[in-house]
């Protein structure tokens, strides 16, 4: 399973918010074109880690990072590294779907337009292909110009996924993407992910351990800012090496 090359690598990663330390010296290698599931109780640093990968934490005053994260071997926190370009390579799906107050079509082309894609035909193609990959094309193809806010929650989240795919990224970060969704919408997102991993590196933070067991190739268990255990999903869920991991996945705490 580890045969895929390393896409992202965090070395001795520490994160601070003011005086508080959120991540404790994390080391993790994330292979290309697989789904990494990150599980752990609330406050374990899952989301902080995820948001460090596209430098979205930069927006928070008093947030500070030490150590390094590399994407294809390049340090993304290097002063000369282009943050805007990074975010186009590393897309992010948030816990709650956030369609921008624009039409469905305009939501999808938001990213591509910023990158300078202006050709209508190319944009049309991009809209169709990304909506198809997110399993929502058939539901919206006849109302691309209606406001995205009018879609249902499950549809909105798939629209947001499509919006990321339109960036043609390399990595997709998902922060508990199904926490507010019904089982059918969740199934659709999971189905999309298992297909998308052939083209993208996917990192899925989830509160739902079963979801990690279903879709993740490798799973990491975070606890209080530390990486407790990391390995192939099958092994982690059947023969966990650490007692805390087995306690968590069997529901003894968390």
């Amino acid at each position, binding site marked *: 399973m580890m045969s895929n090359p390393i896409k992202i690598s965090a070395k001795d990663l520490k994160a601070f918010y003011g005086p508080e330390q959120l991540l404790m010296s994390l080391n993790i290698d994330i292979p290309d074109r697989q789904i990494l599931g990150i599980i752990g109780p609330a406050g374990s640093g899952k989301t902080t880690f995820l948001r460090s990968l596209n430098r979205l934490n930069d927006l928070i*005053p008093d947030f500070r990072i030490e150590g390094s994260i590399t994407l294809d071997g390049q340090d993304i926190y290097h002063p000369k590294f282009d943050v805007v370009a990074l*975010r*186009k390579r590393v897309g992010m799906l948030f816990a709650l779907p956030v369609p921008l107050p624009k*039409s469905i079509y305009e939501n999808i082309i938001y990213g591509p337009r*910023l990158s300078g894609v202006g050709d209508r035909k190319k944009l049309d193609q991009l809209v169709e292909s990304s909506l198809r990959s997110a399993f929502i094309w058939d539901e919206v193809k006849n109302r691309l110009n209606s*406001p995205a806010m009018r879609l249902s929650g499950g549809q909105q989240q798939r629209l947001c996924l499509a919006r990321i795919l339109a960036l043609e990224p390399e990595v997709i970060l998902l922060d508990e993407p199904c926490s507010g969704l019904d089982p059918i919408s969740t199934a659709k997102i999971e189905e999309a992910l298992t297909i998308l991993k052939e083209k993208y590196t996917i990192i899925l933070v989830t509160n739902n351990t079963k979801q990690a067991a279903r879709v993740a190739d490798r799973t990491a268990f975070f606890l209080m800012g530390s990486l407790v255990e990391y390995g192939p999903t099958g092994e982690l869920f059947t023969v966990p090496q650490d007692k805390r991991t087995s306690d968590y996945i069997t529901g003894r705490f968390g």
Partner: protein
Amino acid sequence: MRMPPKYTQLAAQLVMGLATLATLAILVFIILFVLEKGLPVVGLKFLLSNPQDMGKAGGIFPVVVGTILLTLVAIAIATPLGVGTAIYLTEYTRESRITRVIRFGADCLAGIPSIIFGLFGFIFFVTILQMGWSILSGGLTLAFMILPTIIRTSEEAIKSVPDSFREVSFSLGATRWETVQKVVLPSALPGIVTGVMLGVGRSIGETAAVIFTAGSSLRMPTSLMDSARTMSVHFYILAREGISTENAYGTAAILVITILLINLTAYGLMNRFVAKNN
């Protein structure tokens, strides 16, 4: 003894209902009063002909043009300055002593009586900068007068845009400015328009600051360096000097109708914009 909640609820509803009714009644009364007194002299001829005999006879065409020009100048200067300041305060700086000082300054500026602005405009624009009594001097003075309102309403509007919109925009590879331009400002537009409309209303209704800076010439202005008289000033002079009560009310009626029309158009456009996106 305590009244049962059922009655206090009823009483509260009644009191607040009456307060609303009273407010509405006063508004309607003022508008009807002005229209009733003014409408008899109002007509296309009144609107589109030149005043004669200091305004005793004839129409108010140059006054209408002067009002429009002066307001346009004020808005054209105050909107970019005000919205720009609001964007800077909310999006580009962290809350600090400096932003608090700027905000405090804006609040103080908003509380200064308009005649002080008039005096300042007279000394600074008319005399020191030698712009004379002109639409430009008046427009600049009004712009400074309405600036605080536009800053504060825009700031509130921008602050009420959910942070999640900004986060999404950044996560899709937008820079801060692109986020402001494409997401924040469109979402904040209704609030910003409200602020600008308040500014328009104040500009059109202002008398003291205008007399000092734009003068009160009744001639048709041909450039921004010409002196001009606004409807409010015209009304003031006609009424105060006892030139013509009828024409004073006629002017007032047009003033009221203009403000109503501007507000209706602005809110209509805004509703359409909001409905399109939500």
